[in-house]
């Protein structure tokens, strides 16, 4: 590598440099500075550049002929061509997305990787919308779509859009990816993605909706990490932003998240009131899955606070929605909720059948932590009914599931504690509750040891 030539020693006093920049230098002093700058003093040159820029701006601001405020008509006139191009791109992307959705996943990856015809802002934004919609029923699919969008966003040419708009899009792709990773329990990878999203946001256009969305995702991650005070601060900032922006639906979504955080913190009454407020705001037409999740959470919180009769009554008002929306995860959530409610209502046979149904569904969906938690709920019922054989069977079945899915050895070790207790008929309510708390945590933090 070539050696850089040494910087000339700077002997120019600041005052002389300032006089020079202001055009007040004369004769020999002026020549001396010129020669010095031309000799390559980077420091003086940078200072002069900065001063010139500021002076030019000041002069422009002082010109009497300048209008006092911007001409909106003039700005609009300059937007026409750009607006038409954006509209054209949006229409094309809409058709491309319809076509893209028909292909199997492997083919979609091939298209994303090999065909640059999808490299547009609108197509990428559309993929992110798909990714969000997939979150309710299939977080793995959601992650995959976010990865595709991310791949396009990273290579998108900023020329037609401007660098900062493209950076916004990259930030959104990282945000969705982080949220999907969180939902799948990979919290460290989620944190990394959300940190990248934050970097992009700071270099982007300053769109407050992007900021609010990222705060929402960060709050969800912090909730998963059980950093609940930080989670509350983030989600409340998100709520304020959405409120200021007049987007009641998304404000409701953030309030629902706040309700979940309060619920995890054990503040059930505050969580109930927050979820009720969220329900008033969420727009069922805009996101029916979110509206269902809000009502589901309300019923769950009513049940947790001991108001199971009211919970059953409220559930009856929207039970059909689960079938109408047709996604498996919603139905599994309903079955679990109903099993718990039936048990609380003293309808033990029906509750046992419902728990069996929940377990079958969770096993088929390969959701071991959820299956463990449902098994424990079921075990509590069977212990009360004195059915020790059933408790033993539950313990064995779940262990098989854990082993077949390669669950973290800490989670298996915890389950062995339960199995051993089941074998010796030593299962207690206290042990089951501790294990239930453990699996709720371990689902989000694989490798977490069971403290016993």
């Amino acid at each position, binding site marked *: 590598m070539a050696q850089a030539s040494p910087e000339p020693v700077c002997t120019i*006093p*600041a005052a002389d440099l300032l006089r020079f920049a202001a055009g007040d230098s004369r004769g020999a002093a002026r020549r001396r500075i010129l020669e010095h700058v031309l000799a390559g003093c980077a420091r003086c040159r940078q200072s002069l550049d*900065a001063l010139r820029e*500021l002076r030019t701006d000041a002069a422009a601001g002082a010109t009497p002929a300048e209008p006092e*405020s911007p001409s909106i008509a003039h700005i609009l006139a300059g937007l026409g061509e*750009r607006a038409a191009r954006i509209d054209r791109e949006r229409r094309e992307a809409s058709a491309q997305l319809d076509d893209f959705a028909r292909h199997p996943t492997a083919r979609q990856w091939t298209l994303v990787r090999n065909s640059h015809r999808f490299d547009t802002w609108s197509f990428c934004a559309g993929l992110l919308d798909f990714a969000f919609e997939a979150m309710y029923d299939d977080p793995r699919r959601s992650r995959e779509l976010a990865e595709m969008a991310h791949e396009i966003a990273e290579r998108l040419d900023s020329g037609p859009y401007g660098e900062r708009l493209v950076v916004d899009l990259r930030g959104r792709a990282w945000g969705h990816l982080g949220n999907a990773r969180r939902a799948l329990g990979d919290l460290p990878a989620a944190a990394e993605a959300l940190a990248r999203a934050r970097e992009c946001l700071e270099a982007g256009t300053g769109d407050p909706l992007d900021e609010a969305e990222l705060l929402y995702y960060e709050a969800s991650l912090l909730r998963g990490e059980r950093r609940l005070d930080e989670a509350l601060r983030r989600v409340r900032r998100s709520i304020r932003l959405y409120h200021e922006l007049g987007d009641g639906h998304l404000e409701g979504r953030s309030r629902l998240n706040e309700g979940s955080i309060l619920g995890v913190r054990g503040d059930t009454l505050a969580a109930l009131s927050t979820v009720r407020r969220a329900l008033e705001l969420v727009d069922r037409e805009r996101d029916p899955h979110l509206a269902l999740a809000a009502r589901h959470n309300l019923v769950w919180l009513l049940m947790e606070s001991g108001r199971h009769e009211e919970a059953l009554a409220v559930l009856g008002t929207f039970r059909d929605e689960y079938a109408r929306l047709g996604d498996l995860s919603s139905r599994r959530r309903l079955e679990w909720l109903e099993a718990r409610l039936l048990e609380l209502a003293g309808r033990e046979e029906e509750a046992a059948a419902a728990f069996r149904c929940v377990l079958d569904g969770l096993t088929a969906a390969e959701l071991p932590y959820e299956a463990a938690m449902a098994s424990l709920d079921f075990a509590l019922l069977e212990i009360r009914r004195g059915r020790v054989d059933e408790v033993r069977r539950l313990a064995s079945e779940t262990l098989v599931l854990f082993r077949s899915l390669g669950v973290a050895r800490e989670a298996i070790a915890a389950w062995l504690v339960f199995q051993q207790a089941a074998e010796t008929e030593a299962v207690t309510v206290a042990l089951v509750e501790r294990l239930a708390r453990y699996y709720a945590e371990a689902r989000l933090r694989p490798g977490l040891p069971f403290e016993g």
Partner: protein
Amino acid sequence: MRPTSVGLDADDLTSRLERLEPEIRRMLVRFGIPVQDAEDLLHDTLIVYLTKRDSIAAPNPWLLATLRNHCLVYWRRRRRSLIEALDAGLLEEVAGGVCGGQEGTDLARDLSSAVSHLPDRCRSILRLRYGLDCAGPEIAERLGYRPDAIRQATLRCLSALSRQLLSVGYDREVS
């Protein structure tokens, strides 16, 4: 997830901006954005709006909030470039006392004045860094900062200095 359709043709945008015009003007005046730059900021805001309009449920508050953010970013970037200019050369001379307070140059006077208005601790940092050419760890040790915090502290001081400069009219539209 998308909000219900936000009608947007040229007339829609025009009438929307006409309604918002008084608030837009007030905001640009409040932030002291020069006219030419104000047009650029508004133009950029509208481009973002056109590109993202499918996800914007309530355009008017969004437009105002985004324009406000653009104004904030505008000043943050201007301040940063002033800080860089200060950091590159001028401050060294002034804080080091080589030629601070020179007559006949508004900027030099403003710099001296701005430095003198800074809190003692800030002046100490700047004098050590630019006047005595101390490195970060040495400044941290002499002033009792954590070594990893001194860079941020120095940036804060430079930022305070640039605000002082701007507020005394070094560059009137940068106030």
